[in-house]
């Protein structure tokens, strides 16, 4: 059984169809990079997988659980599916430690000592062990995004979703965040990331998906898809982003 299955998923915002009968399987340990123009539905697809956006037709399964079933306990699901956003969304009133340990404390009932150790180890993974007592506004954008990754990892999810997490960062800071992503990938995490970093996708992704007009337009091994696009849409897109 695949970890994630999307069957004929349709998502509309009013009259606008954002996802148009999307079928997708994600196997454990896959690292899937999703590229495409803005408005092609890539972020929406990601957000549907952990139930942040409801869908209108079709079915989304995570580990056999139907995400879009109204009786599904989304809280249980979200403990197993982490998401990191473009705008970090750290909690500005909480220290880095509290940002990371809030959900483990509240949702999993973790005690102070264990929570502190969890924050320490999560921060070590993103190279920010010395920032444990800092507040978000004392950190650079890249550091904030790494804390957001650590916060998500601390829930020990089985799948991590990354929604354009370097798009708000300048190139220098993008590098440090991508390095962390590569590290997480090496640890064997199943990941799906919407990205504009084609070079990174080529290096790290086990599969590349090109989305266009709400559909999965092309997919395959990153190198092959990037070297020899089969459709004119992908060819034009690559030309635009690579030059």
């Amino acid at each position, binding site marked *: 059984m695949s970890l994630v299955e999307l069957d004929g998923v349709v998502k509309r915002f009013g009259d606008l169809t954002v996802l148009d009968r999307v079928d997708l399987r994600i196997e454990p340990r896959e690292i899937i990079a999703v590229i495409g123009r803005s408005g092609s539905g890539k972020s929406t697809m990601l957000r549907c997988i952990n139930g*942040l956006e409801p869908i209108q037709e079709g079915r989304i399964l995570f580990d056999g659980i139907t995400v879009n079933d109204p009786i599904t306990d989304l*809280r*249980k699901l979200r403990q197993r599916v982490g998401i990191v*956003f473009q705008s970090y969304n750290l*909690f*500005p*009133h909480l220290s880095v430690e509290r940002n990371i340990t809030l959900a483990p404390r509240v*949702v999993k009932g973790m005690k102070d000592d264990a929570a502190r150790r969890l924050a320490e180890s999560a921060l070590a993974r993103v190279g920010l062990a010395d920032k444990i007592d800092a507040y978000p506004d004392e950190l650079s954008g890249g550091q904030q995004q790494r804390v957001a990754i650590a916060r998500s990892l601390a829930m020990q999810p089985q799948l991590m979703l990354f929604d354009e997490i370097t798009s708000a960062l300048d190139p220098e800071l993008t590098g440090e965040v991508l390095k962390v992503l590569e590290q997480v990938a090496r640890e064997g995490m199943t990941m799906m990331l919407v990205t504009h970093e084609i070079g990174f996708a080529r290096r790290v992704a086990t599969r590349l998906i090109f989305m266009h007009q709400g559909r999965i337009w092309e997919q395959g091994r990153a190198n092959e898809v990037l070297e020899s696009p089969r459709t004119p849409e992908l060819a034009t897109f690559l030309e635009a982003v690579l030059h």
Partner: protein
Amino acid sequence: MIREFNLIDVYYLLLAARWTLALTGIAFLGGGLVGMIVAVMRVSPFAPLRLASTLFVNVVQGIPLLAWLFVFFFGLPILAGVRISPWTAAIAAYAIYAGAFLGEIWRGCLQAIPRQQWEAGAALALSFGEQLYYIIVPQAIRIAVPPTVGFLVQLIKNTSLAAVIGFVELTREGQLTNAATYQPFTVYIVVAAIYFAMCFPLTQWSRRLERTLRVAR
């Protein structure tokens, strides 16, 4: 018979000011409780709760406080046949009135927190209540202080309306003193000074609180 306005009158005015404070206290407590419920209902993900609270706010804000005092004190005995004390009537009327206004103020403060903060909480498996309690409210409190204190100052002055159901609070005592001494200027200057002495420290305290809350993030 007209007598002189003297220190004993000031003393009586100060005694009456205690009623003003007591009325403000219960109005704020009752209104705060109602207001919290209203504010949470207004931002809740469940449409029927939002609808009910919106209706409540619109009805209460569309009817003057004076009318609410009349409804509870004079209306209930006629409509439902229950006699209630001035205190009960005042508590009910002020809780409803202050509840609607505080509820609206606090709803605005909750909604001023970016939607992404809710979303980040939801993505970390927090429930609606947990998102509210741990993420949204702590950030909203800071922006809620100035308008809340502003309303509290209004409330102090609005307690004078309770005179219509028999409370001899500061304004009413001022009227009575004036009737006995016929020195409106002096009497109402003293009344105004006492109101000012109650309101001014509040606004000062609000400023200080804002500063400390900013430092504490």
